[in-house]
């Protein structure tokens, strides 16, 4: 078997550039301002930011369609590569005001971020289980490190260790599953496995078991109940930029791979799994919705909110149609903007110390009307209130789901949980507007942070009103899964 290098670059161009960027960052860290703390950090951060933005821009030059034995660059993969690059850029933005808290590791943070992003991009192009597993490990291992990134804080270490143990369990499920799939189909490749699956009337128990284990492994990434259990603790303990990246990136990794597996690999056979997926979706919605109510810690709260969003994604996943696949892609993008804005606000309001208690945002409207507006927009979008993007995302998911009569109960249940969730998002708004501020210090918002917040807010608003371009991109991405 010969490797065609130009074809390899056509498929893995983004990954190659990211790898190169990571290496350049390491070298820069070594060469620039040796012995000082801020010099290399600034250089690395600027370079990482510039590089990521450049690669992001370049990804729009790429044409989908390159396909080879080693990987695939369909419009679905390309959509998610852009998504992960955008997430990385936003995470750098969230990390900027947090930088002085990263102390010793501030120069390495962007490098690690670039490497995980590489892993995520690789995963979106994966078309065999080997690449899938290695890519997943690359992403998770780096995320372990990023979660335990402040070893002087017991909470951060605790988060890292819990994450490692539970991550190991999920990896174990994954390997088990892959072994079973290989044992029953004789291949690692998605296309061949798919052929074997769809040649049979009903799946043999071994294959079923293998696929289930793989789905369980991915369920951890997505944060689906009952594999969500690490989320609150890890979200709370990890440094906020890491949490932001986890909440969007890690979830999206689960989404990408689940979509590939369910829609492409399992194909029509996935219809047998509808009930299981729908049940998981209902459980996830329930747990996310009810778990968020008593929370008093902002990041923990957003963790539960993320679980309930995972529930909505599962509702779409249970619906086996092109429309629902498009809805998922739309959903994750709106989630990205709303969530990143919320995390950046958290970083800014907890600047003085690391307390992320909800009291922090009390009376925010008087301290900084801008931040209050951003957080309100983001919460309303997450809650799915009409003019914002989140509403349309939920609407698309439910509209796709209602086409499946067997899922009408799930649609009704999701709507019920959406109302429940509205309650706790409103509680946040109440704190912003109706409570007196607990601390009254000056809130410093740098120009960059302001720009990012504005961008997120506009996106949340714009995609709620004029969603055509995004819907179009999402549909194109989704349709390539069904070919």
């Amino acid at each position: 078997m010969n490797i065609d290098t130009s074809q390899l670059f056509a498929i893995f161009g983004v990954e190659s550039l990211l790898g190169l960027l990571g290496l350049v960052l390491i070298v820069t860290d070594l060469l620039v301002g040796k012995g000082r703390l801020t010099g290399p950090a600034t250089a690395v951060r600027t370079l990482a930011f510039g590089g990521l933005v450049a690669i992001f821009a370049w990804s729009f030059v790429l044409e989908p369609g390159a396909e080879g034995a080693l990987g695939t660059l369909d419009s679905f993969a390309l959509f998610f590569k852009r998504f992960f690059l955008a997430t990385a850029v936003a995470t750098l933005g969230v990390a900027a005001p947090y930088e002085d808290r990263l102390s010793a590791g501030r120069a390495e943070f962007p490098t690690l971020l670039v490497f995980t992003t590489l892993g995520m991009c690789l995963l979106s192009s994966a078309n065999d289980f080997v690449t899938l597993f290695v890519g997943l490990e690359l992403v998770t291992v780096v995320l372990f490190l990023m979660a335990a990134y402040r070893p002087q804080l017991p909470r951060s270490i605790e988060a890292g260790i819990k994450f490692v143990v539970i991550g190991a369990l999920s990896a174990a499920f994954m390997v088990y599953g892959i072994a079973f799939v290989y044992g029953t189909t004789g291949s690692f490749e998605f296309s061949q496995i798919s052929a074997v699956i769809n040649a049979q009337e009903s799946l043999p128990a071994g294959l079923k078991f293998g696929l289930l284990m793989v789905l369980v492994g991915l369920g951890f990434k997505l944060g689906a109940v009952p594999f969500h259990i690490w989320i609150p603790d890890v979200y709370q303990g990890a440094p906020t930029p890491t949490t932001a990246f986890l909440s969007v990136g890690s979830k999206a990794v689960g989404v990408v791979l689940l979509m590939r597996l369910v829609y492409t690999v399992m194909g029509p056979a996935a219809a047998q799994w509808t009930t299981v997926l729908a049940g998981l979706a209902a459980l996830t919605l329930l747990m996310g919705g009810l778990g968020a109510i008593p929370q008093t810690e902002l990041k923990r709260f957003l963790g539960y909110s993320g679980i309930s969003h995972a529930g909505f994604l599962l509702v779409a996943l249970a619906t086996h149609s092109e429309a629902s696949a498009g809805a998922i892609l739309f959903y994750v993008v709106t989630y990205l903007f709303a969530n990143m804005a919320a995390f950046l606000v958290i970083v800014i309001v907890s600047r003085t110390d690391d307390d992320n208690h909800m009291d922090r945002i009390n009376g925010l409207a008087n301290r900084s009307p801008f931040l209050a507006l951003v957080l309100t927009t983001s919460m309303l979008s997450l809650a799915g209130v009409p003019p914002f993007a989140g509403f349309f995302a939920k609407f698309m998911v439910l509209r796709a789901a209602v086409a499946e009569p067997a899922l009408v109960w799930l649609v009704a249940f999701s709507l019920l949980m959406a109302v429940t969730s509205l309650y706790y998002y409103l509680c946040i708004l109440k704190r912003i507007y109706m409570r007196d501020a607990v601390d009254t210090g000056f809130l410093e918002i740098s120009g960059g942070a302001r720009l990012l917040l504005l961008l997120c807010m506009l996106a949340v608003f714009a995609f709620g009103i004029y969603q055509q371009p995004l819907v179009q991109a999402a549909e194109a991405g989704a349709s390539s899964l069904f070919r």
Partner: protein
Amino acid sequence: MDMLPFDVNTLTALCWALFVIPFACAFTLINFGRKLPRGGDWLATAGIASCAVIAITLFFKVIVGFGAPEWAWSSAAYGLSWDWISLESLQLPVGFYLDNLSVIMLTMVTIVATCIFFFSQGYMHGDRDYPRFFAYLSYFCFAMLGLVVVDNLLFLFIFWELVGVGSYLLIGFYYDQEEPPKASLKAFMVNRVGDVLFLLGIIIAWQLVGTLNYTEMFAVLESGAFADRTGWALAGWDTQTLLTLSGILIFCGAISKSAQVPLHTWLPDAMAGPTPVSALIHAATMVAAGVFMVGRMYPYFTPDALLFITGIGALTALIGATMGLVMWDIKKVLAYSTMSQLGYMMLGLGVGGYVAGLFHLITHAFFKACLFLGSGSVIHSVHSQDMRDMGALKNKMPWTYRTFLVATLALAGVPCFAGYYSKDQIVANALSWGLSHGVAYYVPFVFAVVGAFMTTFYMFRLVFLTFHGTPGDQHKYEHAHESPAVMVLPLVVLAIFGIGAGGTIHPLAEHGNLWFNRLVPEPASAAVAGLEHVGADTSVHGESYETYLEHFEHNLHVAHYPALIVSILAIVLGILLARRMYLTKATDPAAVARKFGPLYGIVCNKYHFDDMYGRKGVVGGLMFMNRAFAWFDKNVVDGIVNFMGLAQRFIAFVTGLFDKYVIDGLVNFWRFFVRALSSILRLVQTGNVRDYLTWTLLGVLILAITLA
């Protein structure tokens, strides 16, 4: 001949202007209001007044086309729409839809709003947040006008939510007091319940007919060309059930928005907002949006869905009226009266009186706004909302009194006043419905007549207590004064509409000749046509739907005079009784209250609706759970000792259950469930990794077993 030639571009521009102007005003005021002279009230007022000018211009266009009731600038036919989203899988064109109904609605909303903006300049004078108030009001007008002009259900829903936000902001306007923030939250939450069901209905409707544009929806429905239903059919859902279900779900949106039983509890509390807000939002426009929506979607409702609407409407009309009887707060009386009148409108629509229901929506808006503003004028002068503090105010506030009296007569439905023409039509339709269906179906008619009696009674009770008799509080009486011209003039304008909105003062005018009846023809039921296409049974009591409609039309003519006589009797009776109890004091109201002791108590407690949803209900529910569990424990442990005793206890248990908890069940169960689940959650989220692993593994096992 077309005297006002409008091309499509002009019309589109006018539609845009209608809701962009108020939005621009709101935006300017919220940002720069404090820097503008007079807080920018002139800007907001000018904005809404210009909208009124546009609406009236459009209205004249309608009048000119008097002979052509089908005048409708439907978006598709006239190029008024453009693609919002256009994809292979998802088509969502959006546009404006102007027909006679929406133009009349626009005219009503803008005229009432203009009056209220002027009134507010006097009423809110000197308030700390004066500019913010006008900003919110303008924002509300933007959302409300948008709601009226859009051409599809999804956008109606979006504006519906935006209107709800406006209501939320304005109810909680006095955010530093205790009541308003609570009331605003309550309004918001109760409305969400209805909205979720509404959205579910929209989604199912979309699935069923494949479009959300009104015109296209009805066209598809009429031709019976339903979207692909194979999946649904396989799942055992027939078209008829789905159509009825989605219709009822869509109506559920109107239940919360238009304060119908059982989601009406927010409306009385919403009176915590400033009085002009109550007049604009919670009397004339927003609450009527639910009725407007039902009117818009009218061809979509199947006979079964209409039956449901009738039932809810009749209940609301009666329950609202009874609660109006016992309130002492002047605004609360009006709030319950609004609720009851909205019930009338729904009832009218439900029984097939499409025109009657919508006509009542228009006339009611004018005189109810007048009543609220009148009460605002009184409150402004007396600084109290309790009617026991008032009395004899007619000498001090002659103009307020006169306009209030006119509006009261209109609300009571006294002949020659606007309310008479619309309300009488509803009663006639209800009677005709009863005649066409059979004995059991006279209930809405009876409710409507009893409601009419009560309406007259409580309104005259209000008038007598407030303006006649002796001052309740001498100090307040002495300081009372007529309101400034900027408040009185809007009252006069609205009172004129209270007389003139009927379009005639001929008491025996033929219904078919009224201006509204001629402009807004009743659409044919697309649902029935569609159902006939797919071969569903649409017959009513064994005869075809067409024959039923003929019967109904015939009975309507028969019903006209009997209904008229009965309702006039009810009115006279109401006035006389109110006079006897509150003016001449020949009968002591307290004695009457004692006589109806328990009933009076229930009504005073608002039928326990609030307790049911509130804390009392929760505690009660938990106690019930405890009792149920205790009962179970005891009986399982003891074994069956005495079967008779057990049976006896069981009967007592069931009776007790029925007595106290029959309605609470669902709500409380949900709360209990939430609590139980969060305690399980606490059990799981221990922070110990080993526990986490165990739970996860358990989850995997359950999954695997489900799948195997």
